Every structure is written in structure tokens, then in C-alpha cells.
């Protein structure tokens, strides 16, 4: 690898790479993101390498581990180029068949995507409904490149935006372009990026810093993981452009240590960029120096808050600082520090390449561009979805997400992580956008979208988030530390049937104190999940408090399991699986659960075959009396009935 000393040398290298690459040459691209790897993708990739050897094709067909394209539910995901045939849930045993079919230019039907409603199969990746209904401006690059290869990034046009910035734009022009794009931060608050950049550019003090916030602490959100792992150079490119704009020569990438693959890939990307002269002294001979350091988090959600993150970068505990002092003016080491989220940085090269005007044509009046959401929970197609701002939630959940599995009913979708709120069914036509979600009592947040169905207890959801935040609170300020402590206690009591009159009012009072008086956004937004579930699901709270009943039949202390005699076939599956031997029964003898022994673990309900569905959850009603011994014989129904 040789240092590139001018934009012309970069373009020459790019040309050479493209000439060497034949787009019609077969290539097997397998997703090597953390999700697919957990499903066995490495074994699949290794199997392909071996099989190509076995079938003598290793000189004619390439294999490549790529970044995460987002269809995690169906991983390991494999795409065969140039046809873009997409195979899902690939196992190592499938590999020989795939390779021979590839040789014969045929397709392995059974591994294609199948529409659950129509049974129709889709061959081409881009035609799969999950992908087709998205607008994958950013994430689609992930599956086109080997995440560990800078050459692949160059081959798809990488670092062209950086060239444009360094050699044909002034810092003011770049700033104007970002301002004109109306790009709003993708990390949670949605603050206008251009304004933040301008503040740092104009603030006095040196040295200045640019920072990537890759802490991604919201549970259920993994967009940044996919971007940083899958296409680390796109983040680097955005960061260098940001540095150039505000006059910073040092960048930090703060990555949570729970993402070791992202740490590995971005560290490698930095080394490769340095080798090519795209980082370091006088990038491409422009005279602009820039270096990047990777800093690992150590397990604290609060470090995703920008001032706490900066404190952690200084080698201290992640305690936030008051926001009266703007961190973009006095941040890291009290110097101007421009911090943005991974996805915000990823948008920058695209805006430079295609123009602010292109960007403003996507999205709504106040929310421009696309946003990547992580659609998870009780949803058929779990994964990352990239859509234009303004798409109705309903479309995301049903058209792209495929609706709720197992025939269950949609109940709510939680957006914005622990700082956000729940959107009920009545608001599903809401257009996804910063202000729209805030008005509904939630927020965009970093992009987590947790779908919940009729079996989800909303009191439990509030309790879960408050407990999470109680655990993650830094503990410095009183309203958060002590307020959340008491809220967690009250909500736990309510979920165990020990709620009292006045609890809801106390919770509201503690919420107000936290929202108004907390030091940082963690405390200020902590009451949101409680307040939004109270707003839309008050009846659930009242049932728990007044009737000791959990309408969703979920809270362990308030439910009983009951085997319906008409449905039980005496198959003994639940009996064998019960961890406390609480089920009495025999072959063809109706099973009965001993309520005194039962720990409500729910295993019996999980293992009862779905076509019997004999185990029922009850709450707030007495368990029907056990059948007498002589009535417990299972009568097999004849086919006629």
C-alpha cells in the first residue's frame, strides 16, 4: 500500500481498482455482522471457502464477509453477485448445493425469501418486500463491501467527498452545505447539526476536537453497530470532513466495549486509512493533518450522554456536566468539541457528494433525509430498516416489518429507548419524524423501535425502563438517583399487586421533580416511559392497583397457569418440562397444575403444542376447581366432530 499524495493519485487508484474488478464476476457475499455471526455466519463463510476448493471454483468465484444489511431475523444472509440472488437462514450444510447451483446458474428455491401470506418466493435481494419498501441510502453499502477492506470502500466511491472538501471547498462552504441540508442529529435529541458545527467552528480555543458517539446504549438499538462494523470508513470520512470544517485536527471514536467487532473493524480502518495517507499528516497532500483515536467504553449507559462521554474520554467517571455550558464550545478538556452520533457522521459524505438540495428532498418539512431504525420485539421481520422521514409508523410495522407474529394483536411501539415513550395503535398513522414523535409523548431517540403485542404488560414496560435507569444513573444528582429509586420501588410493588391508592400521584410528583430538576437528560427524560404508558394505558395501571390484575397476563406475581380440560390431550410434554414437577397427569389423563407448587415460569405454556394450546394464563380471576379424578380421562374426538 502506498501513500496517496494527491487527489489525482486517489482517483488513479480508484480507477485501477475498478478495472481490476469485473462486475460480472461471481461473488458470494455473506453478512459478517455481529448478528449473523451469532447465527453461525463464520461457519457458513468457511464452508463456502472449502466448497469452492472442493468444486475447483476457487479461482473463478470470490467470497466476501460483508457488513450488516439489516435483515437480521433471517440470517445468516448470503447474496450471490452479480445476479443479487439472496439466500436466507443459510447453514453450512446448504453450502454445497448453493455452490453447484451457482455453477449451473440455477437457484436454490428453498433458501429464497418466502412471503408468509402468499407463499411467493423472491429471488433478487432488492425485490424482497422487507428491503423494497425501505429507502436504503446509507445501509445498502454495507452488503457491497468487505468491512475490513479499504479497497472495497474506494471501489464504491469512498473518500471522494473528502477530496471534494479538501480541494474544492472552503470550510465555510462545507458548513453552509451542512446547514442547508437541515441534517438533524441522529443520536437522540435531533439538534440541527449545522448549528452545532457552526458553534464549534466559531468558538475560541485550541485544540478543537471532533467526536463520534458510538456508545449506543439504548437497549434494542443496533443501527450504529451495523454502520460502524459494516462500513467504518464512511464514518471516518464524515469525521475528517467535520474536523476540517471546524478546525479540529484530532478525532475520537467512543465505542462501547460490548461491540468488540466494531472496535476491531474501526481500528483496522484507521490503520488502513493511515497507510493510504487518508489520515495523518497532510491528507492527500492537502496540508490538513488529522488523526483519530479509538476509545472503548467500559459499560455505562450514561456515557452516551455527550458531556458524560467527554468526561469519560478524559479518563474519569462518566458524570454529566451542566448543559448551561455548551459542550460544542467548551467540551473535552474545556475546548470546543463537536460530538455527533455515528449515523449523523455517516450522512455527511453523502450530503457532500450529492448536495444539500438532494438531501432536503427526502423527508418532511422539519425532518430531512432517511433514518435507520432497529425494528425489534414482537415483529415478524426483525432488523434494521432505513426509511425516509415522514413514513407512517403503520407502514414500517406492517409493510416492512410484516406485522405481529403468531396472530397476536399489536399493542404499542416504544421509540426513543429509555428516554422515549410508547405509541399506541390509535396513533399508528403518525409520520415518523422528530417533532411528530415528541408531540405524541415519545421521541425519535437513536432509532430503537420495540414492538409490543397483547401479551406485553405496559406497567411492566414502565417498571423495566425505570429499573434500567436506576441501575445506569450516575448518582450525582438527587432527583434522578433518589427519585428513580422510589419510582422503581412503587412500580415493582404495583406489578406485584401491592400497589396503593395515591401511588400514581406520587409517581407523577417524582416524575415532575426528575424532569425539572435533574442534572442531565438521563434524569430529565427518565419519567417518559412511565408518563406515556400512563397516558395511553391508564386502565392497566388501575387494574394492577385496584384489582391486583394484570390485563396482559404477564406479571409473574399476578398470574396463574391453568390447563383447559377440553383442550388437554394428556400428551405429557408440559409435565416432563415443568422444572418444579407441579403438573400431575398421565397419558390420556387430563393434566392439572398444582397451584401451590407452580412458580409461574411459563414453560408449560411455551411447550404445549400450538395446535392444542391447552395452557391458559389467568389473572385477577380464581383458578377453576380441579376436575374430579373420574372425569380426567381424555376423550379422543373423532374426525367427524
Amino acid at each position, binding site marked *: 500500500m502506498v501513500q496517496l499524495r494527491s487527489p489525482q493519485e486517489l482517483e488513479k487508484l480508484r480507477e485501477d481498482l475498478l478495472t481490476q474488478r469485473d462486475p460480472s464476476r461471481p461473488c458470494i457475499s455473506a453478512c459478517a455482522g455481529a448478528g449473523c455471526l451469532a447465527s453461525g455466519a463464520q461457519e457458513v463463510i468457511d464452508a463456502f471457502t472449502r466448497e469452492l476448493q472442493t468444486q475447483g471454483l476457487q479461482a473463478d468465484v470470490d467470497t466476501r464477509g460483508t457488513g450488516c444489511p439489516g435483515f437480521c431475523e433471517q440470517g445468516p444472509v448470503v447474496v450471490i453477485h452479480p445476479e443479487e440472488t439472496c439466500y436466507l437462514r443459510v447453514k453450512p450444510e446448504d453450502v454445497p448445493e448453493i455452490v453447484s447451483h451457482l455453477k449451473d446458474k440455477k437457484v436454490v428455491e428453498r433458501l429464497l425469501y418466502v412471503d408468509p401470506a402468499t407463499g411467493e418466493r423472491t429471488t433478487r435481494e432488492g425485490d424482497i418486500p422487507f428491503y423494497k419498501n425501505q429507502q436504503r441510502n446509507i445501509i445498502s453499502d454495507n452488503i457491497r463491501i468487505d468491512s475490513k477492506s479499504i479497497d472495497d470502500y474506494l471501489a464504491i466511491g469512498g473518500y471522494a467527498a473528502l477530496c471534494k472538501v479538501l480541494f474544492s471547498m472552503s470550510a465555510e462552504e462545507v458548513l453552509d452545505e451542512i446547514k442547508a441540508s437541515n441534517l438533524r442529529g441522529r443520536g437522540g435529541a435531533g439538534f440541527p447539526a449545522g448549528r452545532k458545527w457552526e458553534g464549534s467552528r466559531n468558538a475560541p480555543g485550541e485544540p478543537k476536537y471532533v467526536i463520534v458517539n458510538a456508545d449506543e446504549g439504548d437497549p434494542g438499538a443496533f443501527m450504529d453497530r451495523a454502520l460502524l462494523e459494516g462500513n467504518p470508513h464512511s464514518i471516518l470520512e464524515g469525521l475528517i470532513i467535520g474536523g476540517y470544517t471546524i478546525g479540529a485536527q484530532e478525532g475520537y471514536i467512543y465505542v462501547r466495549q460490548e461491540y468488540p467487532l466494531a472496535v476491531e473493524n474501526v481500528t483496522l480502518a484507521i490503520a488502513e486509512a493511515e497507510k493510504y495517507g487518508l489520515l495523518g499528516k497532510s491528507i492527500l497532500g492537502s496540508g490538513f493533518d488529522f488523526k483519530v483515536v479509538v476509545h472503548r467504553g467500559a459499560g455505562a449507559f450514561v456515557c452516551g450522554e455527550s458531556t458524560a462521554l467527554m468526561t469519560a474520554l478524559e479518563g474519569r467517571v462518566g458524570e454529566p456536566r451542566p448543559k448551561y455550558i455548551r459542550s460544542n464550545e467548551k467540551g473535552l478538556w474545556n475546548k470546543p468539541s463537536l460530538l455527533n452520533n455515528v449515523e449523523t457522521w455517516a450522512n455527511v459524505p453523502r450530503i457532500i457528494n450529492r448536495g444539500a438540495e438532494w438531501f432536503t428532498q427526502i423527508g418532511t418539512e422539519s425532518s430531512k433525509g432517511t433514518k435507520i431504525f432497529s425494528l425489534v420485539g414482537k415483529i415478524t421481520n426483525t432488523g434494521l430498516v432505513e426509511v425516509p422521514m415522514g413514513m407512517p409508523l403503520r407502514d414500517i410495522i406492517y409493510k416492512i416489518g410484516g406485522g405481529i407474529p403468531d396472530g397476536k394483536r399489536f399493542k404499542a411501539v416504544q421509540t426513543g429507548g429509555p428516554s422515549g415513550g410508547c405509541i399506541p395503535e390509535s396513533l399508528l398513522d403518525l409520520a415518523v419524524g422528530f417533532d411528530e414523535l415528541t408531540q405524541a409523548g415519545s421521541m425519535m431517540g437513536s432509532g430503537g423501535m420495540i414492538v409490543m403485542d397483547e401479551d406485553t404488560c405496559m406497567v411492566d414496560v414502565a417498571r423495566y425502563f425505570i429499573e434500567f435507569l*436506576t441501575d445506569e444513573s450516575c*448518582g450525582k444528582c438527587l432527583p434522578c438517583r433518589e427519585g428513580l429509586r422510589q419510582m422503581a420501588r412503587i412500580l415493582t410493588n404495583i406489578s406485584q399487586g401491592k400497589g396503593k391508592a395515591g401511588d400514581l400521584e406520587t409517581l407523577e*410528583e417524582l416524575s415532575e421533580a426528575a424532569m*425539572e*430538576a435533574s442534572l442531565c437528560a438521563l434524569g430529565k427524560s427518565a419519567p417518559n416511559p412511565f408518563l406515556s404508558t400512563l397516558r395511553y394505558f391508564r386502565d392497566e395501571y388501575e387494574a394492577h392497583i385496584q384489582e391486583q390484575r394484570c390485563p396482559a397476563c404477564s406479571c409473574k406475581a399476578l398470574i396463574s397457569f391453568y390447563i383447559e380440560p377440553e383442550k388437554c390431550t394428556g400428551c405429557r410434554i408440559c409435565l416432563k418440562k415443568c422444572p418444579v414437577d407441579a403438573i400431575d397427569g398421565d397419558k390420556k389423563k387430563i393434566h392439572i397444575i398444582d397451584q401451590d407448587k407452580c412458580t409461574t415460569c411459563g414453560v408449560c405454556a411455551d411447550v404445549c403444542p400450538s395446535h392444542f394450546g391447552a395452557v391458559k394464563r389467568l389473572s385477577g380471576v380464581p383458578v377453576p376447581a380441579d376436575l374430579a379424578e373420574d372425569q380426567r380421562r381424555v376423550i379422543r374426538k373423532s374426525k367427524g366432530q
Partner: protein
Amino acid sequence: MSDIRLQIDGKDVKATEGMTLLEAARGAGISIPTLCHHDKLVPFGGCRLCLVEVEVAGWTKLVVSCVYLAEENLIVRTRTEKIEKIRKTLLELLLAHAPDAPALKALAEEYGADADRYEKEASFCIHCGLCVRYCAEVKKKHAVGFIDRGIRKEISFLPHIAAVECNDCKECFPLCPTSYLQAAFVLIEALAFPRGSSQSS
């Protein structure tokens, strides 16, 4: 240094650059309750009792006066209905830890806080941080520090330093509003000081 003119509780107040609202108010004879504030220490902003409402360019917000710097033309209100309600809630949360602390009892009476609102907590430390900060910033010994975070956060004496420094100092003892500090010290002295180092044994 130019003067900054602002208004606190309807009174015209002059402040100098770099002054906090708390300092400006005290200079004008207006009292604002505090717990974690100490003139010799960097403002902590932990107890939030010194909350005030500020209005600038038509926008109002609540800020902690021990940290917020005085600005020209700022309108400050130190007691509004909302502030009083929040202070009452904060005091009730503190009283769950230290119902007998004199400073808290006095404030509780002023704000109508109910000491029995919340279940009593095991620890009577109220996390004002005065001990830790005093030892770090004034004495520069770092003999006592914080450990952990959130509701598990505690103060902790470092035995190998405290055994050498504390018996001749103890300047932090009178700072503790609840006497938890003294109790913690006695305990660590008994449990963890190297043998023969304590003067009292």
C-alpha cells in the same frame, strides 16, 4: 470587570463577571437553600435545592443557582410555586435517608416536607459530596472518595491513606450534614486500618 445588572425576586442586583446566581443573590441579601454548596469548593450541583427560575428573551427554565453564571438582564425568581413543590419533593427524598439531620429538619419545616413520605432507607448519607470534595480540593489528600454509581453509590475512606492522614485532620467532619461521615470513619478505622496505626486504639 464590568458590572452585570440582573433582577432577583423583583430586586435590582449588581453582579460581577464570573459570579454565580447564588453568589449574586447572597450578595443582595436574598437567601436560597443549599446543601452541597461550600464557598471553598467548586460548585457541585448535586442536591438541586438551590433551583431558581430564570427568564431570558422570553424563555423560562429552571437552573441550579450555584452553577449558573449571572447574565445581563436576567430575571430570576428564587421561589415560585413549582420550585417550592420540587424542593418539598427533594427534601422528602432526603428525609428517607436522614430524618434527624438538623439542616434537613429545618428545611422540612419551611417547605412542609413530610419525613414519613417514603420508606426509610438504610444509609443516612445524602451524597452532598462535601467530604470527598473537601479532601480532594482543599486538603488534596483524597483520603475519602466515592465508589460505584446510582443508588449503589457510597463514600469510602481509603484505609491506607486515611490511617496516615485523618486523625490529625478531621476537617471534613463538621461539614457532614448527617454525621454519616463520622460513622463511616469509625467503622473503617475499626475494620481496615493497618494495626497499630490508629491513635485511639
